[in-house]
């Protein structure tokens, strides 16, 4: 996978994970163009499109578009499953996830993604294991914080 973008139906970016080195300008340009292209698609169209020299796989969940750019040899159908797995993880973590959860807890969305994918490939195929790791890390974060007098610094 080269990158993954999450954006709303109004085109607002909610998460961007880049697995290839590009300048900020390039990233912005790609994001803008791709968002436009995907938003222009009609609901009956298939989830795949060719864009520049990449294969784009996208799927809409409620008000959010999940959009991945994969390479030529990658399997489009399994990418749909990867997207779905990520949504399931978010759903389990936040309890019936909605766009607002991802807006207000974007850093957690990243943490979960980084426990599921690494360098663009899946690192863990068990839902349970990903969630367990996140849970433990969250606990570690809390213990870190309770040990110091300032309380929860982040939220």
């Amino acid at each position: 996978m080269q990158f993954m973008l999450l954006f709303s139906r109004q085109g607002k970016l909610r998460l961007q994970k880049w697995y290839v080195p590009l300048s900020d300008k390039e990233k912005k340009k790609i994001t803008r163009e791709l968002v436009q292209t995907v938003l222009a698609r009609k609901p009956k169209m298939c989830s795949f499109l060719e864009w520049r020299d990449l294969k784009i796989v996208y799927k809409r969940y409620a008000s959010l578009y999940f959009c991945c750019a994969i390479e030529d040899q990658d399997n489009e159908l399994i990418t749909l499953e990867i997207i779905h797995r990520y949504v399931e993880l978010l759903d389990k973590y936040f309890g019936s996830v909605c766009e607002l959860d991802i807006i207000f807890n974007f850093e957690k969305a990243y943490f979960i993604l980084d426990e599921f994918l690494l360098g663009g490939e899946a690192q863990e195929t068990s839902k349970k294991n990903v969630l367990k790791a996140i849970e433990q890390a969250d606990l570690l974060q809390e213990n870190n914080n309770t040990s110091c007098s300032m309380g929860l610094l982040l939220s």
Partner: protein
Amino acid sequence: MPAPIRLRELIRTIRTARTQAEEREMIQKECAAIRSSFREEDNTYRCRNVAKLLYMHMLGYPAHFGQLECLKLIASQKFTDKRIGYLGAMLLLDERQDVHLLMTNCIKNDLNHSTQYVQGLSLCTLGCMGSSEMCRDLAGEVEKLLKTSNSYLRKKAALCAVHVIRKVPELMEMFLPATKNLLSEKNHGVLHTSVVLLTEMCERSPDMLSHFRKLVPQLVRILKNLIMSGYSPEHDVSGISDPFLQVRILRLLRILGKGDDDSSEAMNDILAQVATNTETSKNVGNAILYETVLTIMDIKSESGLRVLAINILGRFLLNNDKNIRYVALTSLLKTVQTDHNAVQRHRSTIVDCLKDLDVSIKRRAMELSFALVNGNNIRGMMKELLYFLDSCDPDFKADCASGIFLAAEKYAPSKRWHIDTVMRVLTTAGSYVRDDSVPNLIQLITNSVEMHAYTVQRLYKALLDDISQQPLVQVASWCIGEYGDLLVSGQCEEEEPIQVSEDEVLDVLEGLLVSNLSTPVTRAYSLTAIMKLSTRFSSVNRIKKVVSIYGSSIDVELQQRAVEYNALFKKYDHMRPALLERMPIMEKTATNGPTDIAQTNGETDSTILDTKHLPSITQPASQANDLLDLLGGNDVVPVIQTTVPTKPASAGGELLDLLGDLSLTGIPPMTAYNKNGLKIEFTFERSNPSPNIAVITIHATNSTEADMTEFVFQAAVPKTFQLQLLSPSSNVVPALNQGSVTQVIRVLNPQKQQLRMRIKLTYTHKGSPVQDLAEVNNFPPQSWQ
């Protein structure tokens, strides 16, 4: 200083902004606060501030001033800090940033941290965006972690290694020992990432590939266990056990089995098993089947398995899910060359996909349809494709039209069918047809001698309906110019001949000249057509008038033509009939052979144009040469240049092109023979589709006072070459260089050896026969290299 506001608070506040300007103001204010907080080196709130900065970065605002703060967070001992710090690094500190490398030491320390979650953070960061230098520095640490027994770390290390290898391929070797027992792991995470690592290594190095071939049995066993084992809740997706791992294993098997008989055989059974047993009701099962099909097609599988794979694709085509249909069409496109017959069986389903609503599916269906067209199904397929052409998006029309022309050319069952098909395309998608199709079509029409009357009648009728589609108009006006006499005499046999008078025809052509819809090229075509009719129609006066009007046209091309034609009427009327004679059958160059229509779509080039003029058109040529000489000294601008302003103009302006320089390539002409007044010059040309063929045109001229009659030119070449001699323009070489005999030789030189030729000339001069032999060795190197 008060505590900086919380992250969620900031997000809430920014979201209340009603305008972009209001948002910008809020952001600026907060950024200022954050900046001063950074300046104070506040450890407590750094984490919070960076998090806020990352949010603002996502909204599109600059956040570079937070880069160093991320580094400080990474270096902190607190896990919270590290978590945000590494996140910030991944978002703000990619390898293009100057401070990127400053992370290296921190990452190195964290790779060896006592807490696995910290190690995980650093592995993740390194594996997502580590630069080559960083990878070089830390590869050793990654390799160590690849051998750990902690599966949480091992799986991350494997993917990190993949990234290192991608960045610094030379380091691949160092990971080899650690891969030894990766596949004996029970942990699926480790298995999955290991397979990814092995795949990466095999793709990059043929040595690694042969080394890892021995893993095939083990991979087969793992795959088998996945399929056969019962329900495993941890890895289950809709009743299938760990589809992600299955797909990756299938992909690795594909790479290992490609080109290798033994490996392919070892995996035959499991592939058949997966192909037949996988549940297809949900996307996940189809994802596995898709990967299986790709593997079967790539390795050396037995034919039964291949047929099974194609049938799976055929079933995919009937699936309600358009994603599946899309994937099927893509795969079929890849296999249509190798398994053509099997794919043919699904032709009707593929053709149905032309009617799909999705653009990508339609495009693939179109490409596949063209690949499947053959002599047997041409009529049926063409009906469908023409219907598709009618209704498809404009983006498709150009490609579709080109594809149809190519297919028609290859498989037309009859000339009439061919012309009808061409007409249909011109009338429905005329404006989308590629420019070079116009000369191609003209050639086609010229060569279908018995269809001239029919063609010109149909084109005339089409013109009456619509003059907006330029390619159609151009072809039509050219034809009317050539065959107008057939039109008015009502000679059509194929269909009911129409009654049309000379004036009506001229009305139409003149209408083209004045219409706003006509491009300059089209106008040039119609002017020339009108001119040609002066020898076919009787209303010469009317034509003379039109021609003289355009002598003062603003369009330089039109003006030039009109002036020349005027000159023809006035001073060179005796030459007019010969010059405006019917075009002879044009020689056809080898058309592009490749079956991949998608490729040839872009390639329908103007090779047809190149040699069109080389075959001899003697009398007009020689007289036109005279014309050249005679016009040279007048105030009328000598016309004869090959500067055809636009590509298809050659068809309308070929009179002018004949007089142009015949050596159309950069290869210099040469004198092959010059004796007793007979001089033979060779001019060269490369045949575009096959650069091994050199096309040589000989020009024989005679400087003596008497004609050389019964002139025969023969040539022989060494065994490694093949020679084809086409018919000469005539067998009289006129005296005093008054003209030339031309003849085309085609030499096939596959071994690119130096061209040599022996020629034999026989002719009769002043009553006595003359014969001569000569060797031609002075071919310029470009002609055979």
